[in-house]
């Protein structure tokens, strides 16, 4: 135009509709999944070494491991989610040359945060037996590194690496632990033995990732700066993830600190009656998490792609509405189907509770906690699945709010149960899971009902989210 006006094209720019919807639905599950590994590892070690070491001594070994898993998963949660987001954005943009940079930065920050958290908790707060300190810190950091490589492995869907890494690694751990116990090893020796297996897991997964992304890291400091920048941009995501991990452990923390907690020789507290029953209850929802992951991979994600393609190829509003409705329905249906099967499975577990409890050599009064834990876990699965799906839909704020809700309820309700008889142990967690699970599901349903709005709305308001990649 001759001197006036600006080019219309300048304002009529269209933004990438799905830039924020990168495929990290499965990654959300990977992020949610690790606590399952926590339980498997602890359970396996407990079962295999209990007889040789004696309950007292083994408890010290086990508590250090539990703390290591809990501390590292909480400390690395923000790093893992940010790294996952960056990697999935990179994949979306088909730009792979800086994946190794992100990995490096994530390992660095993960180590830093875990080191700091370990120091604060183990040294400053509990001031644990100084003989335990070296293996404890070492295992904390090692597990932190594993959480991070796990996220990368999940992002490239190298589930084989994860499976082999853990199967072989944990086998080594268990075998060395048993061997060490058999030769009169103390809990500290067991910890070192255990960490050898974890080293294998870490390096196995790391090598698999580095073989996929071989770019050398030329500028380590700029890689760190980049990660800090993305964290600033996605702080809601980072905080949400951190809260989610604290929330999962909140009821345990309360039980440990409260009079129900017992101090062990190593200097750490635990609540054995509560902990073991709850850990066992969690195991019951493993099948659901697995089928949910499959649902995300095969159904949800594919339907999302179809919707994406249709919109880009000039679909009318009616066509878009039809596709989003299908997506919403299939998501809801998928979730309910999994819940139904899981419900039956839980019912079975509840009936068989006395048997299971007896098999694991637990106390009789743990039957009730175990049963309550199973129902709670069922709803926690609903919470996890719903909030992960919201994360997939890039509803980060919803995700954060839900995690805050669960953290709050899980803490407060558990504190409240402390004032009642011990028969009510676990009801706090149950109440928190039920309320949070239903709220998360209703929120998800609402978001799915208005999915078209959210897709376009987000494209319009949050287009700059991937700017860091430039």
């Amino acid at each position, binding site marked *: 135009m001759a*001197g006036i006006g600006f080019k219309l094209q300048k304002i009529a720019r269209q933004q990438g509709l799905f830039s924020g919807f990168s495929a990290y639905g499965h990654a959300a599950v990977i992020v949610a999944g690790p606590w399952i590994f926590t339980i498997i590892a602890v359970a396996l070690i407990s079962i295999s070494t209990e007889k040789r070491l004696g309950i007292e001594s083994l408890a010290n070994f086990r508590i250090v491991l539990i703390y290591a898993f809990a501390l590292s998963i909480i400390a690395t949660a923000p790093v893992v989610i940010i790294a996952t987001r960056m990697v999935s954005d990179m994949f979306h943009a088909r730009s792979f040359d800086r994946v190794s940079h992100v990995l490096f930065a994530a390992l660095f920050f993960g180590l830093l945060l875990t080191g700091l958290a370990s120091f604060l908790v183990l040294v400053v707060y509990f001031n644990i037996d100084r003989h335990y300190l070296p293996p404890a810190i070492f295992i904390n950091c090692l597990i932190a590194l594993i959480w991070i490589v796990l996220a990368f492995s999940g992002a490239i869907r190298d589930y084989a690496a994860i499976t082999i890494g853990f199967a072989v690694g944990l086998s080594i751990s268990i075998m060395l632990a048993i061997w060490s116990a058999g030769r009169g090893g103390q809990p500290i020796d067991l910890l070192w033995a255990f960490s050898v297996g974890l080293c294998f897991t870490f390096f196995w997964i790391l090598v698999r990732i580095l073989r996929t992304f071989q770019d050398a890291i030329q500028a380590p400091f700029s890689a760190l700066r980049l990660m800090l920048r993305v964290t600033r941009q996605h702080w809601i995501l980072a905080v949400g993830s951190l809260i989610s991990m604290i929330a999962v452990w909140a009821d345990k923390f309360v039980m440990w600190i409260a009079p129900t907690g017992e101090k062990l020789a190593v200097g750490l507290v635990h609540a054995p009656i509560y902990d073991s029953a709850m850990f066992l209850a969690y195991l019951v929802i493993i099948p659901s998490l697995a089928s949910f992951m499959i649902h995300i991979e095969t159904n949800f994600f594919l339907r999302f792609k179809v919707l994406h393609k249709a919109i880009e190829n000039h679909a009318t509003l009616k066509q878009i509405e039809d596709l989003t409705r299908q997506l919403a329905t299939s998501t809801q249906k998928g979730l309910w189907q999994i819940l139904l099967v899981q419900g039956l499975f839980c019912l079975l577990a509840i009936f068989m509770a006395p048997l299971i409890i007896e098999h694991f050599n637990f106390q009789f009064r743990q039957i009730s906690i175990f049963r309550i834990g199973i129902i709670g876990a069922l709803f926690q699965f609903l919470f996890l699945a719903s909030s992960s799906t919201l994360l997939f839909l890039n509803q980060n704020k919803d995700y954060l709010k839900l995690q805050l809700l669960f953290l709050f309820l899980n803490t407060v309700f558990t504190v409240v149960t402390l004032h009642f008889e011990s028969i009510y142990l676990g009801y706090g967690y149950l109440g928190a899971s039920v309320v949070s699970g239903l709220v998360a599901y209703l929120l998800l349903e609402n978001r799915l009902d208005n999915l078209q709005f959210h897709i376009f709305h987000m494209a319009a308001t949050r287009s*700059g989210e991937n700017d860091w990649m430039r």
Partner: protein
Amino acid sequence: MALMENKKNKQKSVLVRRSHQRAADEAGDPKIAKWHAIANKDAKADICLIVEGCYPFVRGGVSTWLDWLMRNQPDLTFSVFAIFPFSDFRKAHYEVPDNLVSFHQLGLQDLGKESSFGHKIDNKSVKQLHEEMTTDLLNLFDVGGLEDFSRLNAAIQDPASGIPKSGFMNSPFAWHLINSLYERKMPQASFLHFFWAARVLLGGMFAIMQSDIPRADLYHTISTGYAGLLAARAKLEMKNPVLISEHGIYSNERRIEILMADWIADTVDTGLSLQDKRFDLRDLWLRAFDSYGRTCYQACDEITTLFEGNQRIQEYLGAPTDRMHVIANGIKFENFSSLEKQEGHPPTIALVGRVVPIKDIKTFLRAVSIARKSIDDLSALIMGPTDEDEDYFEECRLLVGELDLESCLTFTGNVKLTDYFPQTDLIVLSSLSEAQPLVLLEAGAAAIPCIATDVGSCREIIEGRSDETPAIGAGGIVTGLVDAVSIARAIVELLTDSEKRIALGKTLQTRVDRYYRSEQSAQNYKALYARHGITSAQSDPIGDPREQDR
């Protein structure tokens, strides 16, 4: 595609960042500091100038004219309301005139953050507002104007409606609004494209409706479009007179831009059927800007433009004829009338203009080639920058070779006209499009007759306006477009008949002297303001609107 768009955005944000960087670098510049000093100042002015996409950040004819206008009404105070796609403060190309008291900037696409307004669309009052606004918007885009705009504006301004001051376009309400418009207007089109188009069109309009109008006694817009909408709001809310002075016709230029835009998808396959009356995205864009234009014209107390030809387009676009006037731009007459003609040079013709397709340099070259058959020692000059469209310049050079014109034709590049006019016998303009070409006035002031195509105000300048009394007569010859033969015939006629040539030159000089002096133009604007109650003691018009641009 999403990816591609993403890349574009990234490039954009790089540019924005760079411009911020530049702004920071220049923060110490006193010229910039002056702009910052008057930015968003709440000072009442006599006149608020509403400008879109030009002054003071973009150089060009209109920007320079605005600078001239303010400097030539020194007894009046002005404020400037500048509309841009985004409101980043860039480097101003003009110095702050002494009588410019405040500067306001609006970014049309700064749509704010998020808002949950209309979250419950089934709420009775929200639903009613939604239905009313949908109807008003449909009416506005159909054949509506000020009345529909007024209703929409009232809803936006009404505190009871609950519409948020920021983030309205990002609210569920706006989403439902876009959906309803889509369903009612073009349910067969690509929703993706409709969504972005509607966001831009409505977003811009609502941004205008939600901005604060600077205080002034009179509002003067230089175009329709978004600037025109703000003028309409000023009329409705401030109850003060509103004027429009168009150089180019905004709606018309938008029309060309939209019809040629390859980024607007044609989603209705009309095939070979000319009867297909289905509404498509292009229609949406066109209708929107047409309706913005009608709204503005209906709101304006007086509508001026540079020449009569534009008035016919304004009328077609809905401007009431009884409010229309022509105010031409002027030049500094003495700068050219005082030039002494030099003798002893070969017969010389010149085309003054940039070497670009719209000036149709190739037709000029062909005309030169034909004319040279009659005039052996003909010398032809093309005076103007050649670097704007280098491919076209190269094509022209090849044509010069083909026509064997090397010996008689010179591309002078950008030169000072006063150095060349004394040896020039004739000015030729072969343009395909012009508004009011100042070179004809400058040539006229120097008593050089002109041959020009019948575009813009060329005929008015050469033959006189229809209401010219007494009629002065022709100051040159008007030819058809892309008509090398006619142009050549006119060149030969005037170069071989020196008596006629001199007479035409004198006539043109008389006309320019009488109607196209810069002082006269400034006086006309002064009178225009006075007609609407804005007067000053004594103004001292100075300068040529193009002077500062040289």
